[in-house]
């Protein structure tokens, strides 16, 4: 290692080869992934998120929601994700092809949200989500800065939160979600991964079942 240039070359080569293998290698494998076209349904999956939802993802990112919530459902036999109702199947790479900044997350102080809009038997209502964001709960912080408390001018806004008890504003006032709150909720309710891609079907048990059907 006395030879300086050779040493530096070795350093860069070692690091670049590892980077190419991991990052460029997986890019080669998945970089060209396209949505899946279902001929039966005549449409492709996943659906492109609505403009409101795409903007909501930026709010999700800038508030750092990913520090407590993941967005990756694991396989039914790996963890309790399915039993908790977070999703019937594991998340696959195709779920994220339209996401500008996927928020996979690394911590579950709160529930996984990958299939938040596809919860069964029914998805949470946007009122319920807005209420949680405004009031918080014992486990979830309140984010009042996403809302505006203002005097009712004429008719009450149709977006105003229906609040009661201590959380209700003074009479003549209303609490209205800001644009950021609305996009955030649109984003959350837009998150669903109900469609079964071929690669999302279980690998282990599938062959025996298919043989039985044949």
């Amino acid at each position: 290692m006395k030879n300086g240039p050779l040493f530096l070359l070795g350093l860069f080569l070692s690091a670049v080869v590892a980077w190419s293998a991991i990052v460029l290698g997986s890019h080669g494998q998945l970089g060209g992934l396209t949505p899946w076209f279902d001929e039966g349904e005549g449409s492709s999956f996943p659906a492109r998120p609505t403009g409101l939802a795409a903007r909501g993802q930026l709010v999700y990112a800038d508030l750092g929601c990913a520090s407590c919530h993941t967005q990756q459902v694991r396989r039914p036999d790996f963890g309790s994700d399915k039993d908790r109702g977070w999703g019937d199947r594991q998340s696959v790479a195709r779920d994220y092809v339209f996401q500008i900044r996927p928020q996979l997350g690394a911590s579950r102080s709160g529930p996984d949200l990958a299939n938040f809009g596809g919860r069964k038997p029914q998805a949470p209502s946007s009122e319920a989500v807005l209420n949680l964001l405004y009031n918080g709960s014992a486990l979830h912080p309140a984010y009042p800065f996403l809302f505006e408390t203002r005097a009712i001018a004429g008719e009450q806004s149709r977006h105003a939160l229906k609040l009661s008890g201590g959380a209700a504003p003074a009479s003549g006032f209303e609490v209205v979600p800001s644009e950021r709150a609305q996009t955030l909720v649109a984003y959350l309710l837009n998150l669903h991964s109900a469609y079964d891609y071929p690669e999302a079907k279980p690998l282990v048990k599938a062959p025996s079942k298919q043989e039985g059907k044949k």
Partner: protein
Amino acid sequence: MTYPSIQAAPSAGDAIDRHARGPLLTAIGLAIVWLVLSGIFSLIAAIQLHSPAFLASCEFLTHGRVRALAETAFVYGWAGGAGIAATVWVLGRLGGNPLRGMNWFGAGSAFWNLGIVAGLVGIATGDMTSFSFLQLPRYVQPLLVFASASMGISGLLAWSGRRRDGTFASHWYGVAGLVLFPWALTAAQISLLWAPMRGVLQAVGAAWYVDALTFLWLAPLMLALAYYLLPKLDEKTLPSYEAAPLSFWLLIVAGTWGAGRHLIGGPVPAWIPTMAVVGFSLLAYHFSVVGLNLRGVLWAKGPAGGALKFGIVAYLTFGLVAFVGCFRSVALRTQFTHFASASEQLFLYGAVSMTLFAGIYFLFPKLSGRSWASPSLVSGHLTGVKIGIALSIITLALAGLTQGAMLLNSKVGFGEIAASTRTYLLVNTAAQFVLLASNLLLLVNFWRSALSCCGAASNAEGSAS
């Protein structure tokens, strides 16, 4: 004071250090300020873990943002700033000539710290990138690449212009840390922020960057310091030194293969997590050799020796924990829990920071020509951080294991999980408080000691120019 070699060769070191004194001490002083600031953010984040409502209604301090602020100030401000400065000093000492290019270092350090200020303001106002360890907003990242490269120039000049032909382990690790970081940061920001890859590939790229930051930057900087300090402290040659080159190259080659351990069970190609097992099997050799080479640290004396002992033991423990965590059956119980934070703390605080503390306590008297203003503050700081780090890692690990076991049972709700981990998280808050208080002692002591030497430093610079 127990700094054995300070009286041994004061004059030679003095001449070498004089030119470097101002820029290096300033860089280290600023790094300590970041350490204290990051401690404040960590304390807030720790409180929010058991009392979610704490300060959450302040938009700048949501849990996500506070964590990003704490992490960024710690990794880039403290560990990076102090690590690069200490490495440049080590390379200068090993080179045997006065450090050259210190203007590059000074300018780089100034822009580095300005970049972090801008970055933290950006994170607090909503520009964080949402990639862990790469939370700095896109617009400050190119600045950090140039600033870190500029700081490294002095180190590289000292290495290429060394008096002796041969090189030491500290040379390899130091140079690797200095040159690979600007490249890794460039590769990560291009593939994640400027020309982002699609979908989950971003998660793969981000996981790679976490391991690049760990094993291609902070670990080499820390080991450069450790391999330099130990022979100085115990005045013995390192045993099994002939194995060190292979151990070094394994770290550089296979260090980032472990990226997949962050993605086990995730929506990524299955070979990525598998490769983590292969990578860490190779790294097992690296960790074993570091342990063999530096085993003398167990008998090291004095404040620097004690801190270094803690750092090396933490580094080896981290290697073991990360290796075990690559396996799916283990990840099932630890993934997405506080255990991941414990393992992160073990590396960043236990290994890197303790080694940096050892380095700072060792190099400050030589670099400044002054002894520490208060020896009792030195021992107070080190005792405090050792207790704080151990307490924080143990409680986070226990909280994580509890959380992991409860997450596996779908009948257990998040309320119950929060209730059973609450005690651990409360103790963790106390540990964060101890850490913050102890690091304040370091800041006060550094400030008081440096204040008396600043006059001398500026005089020296004045006479040099």
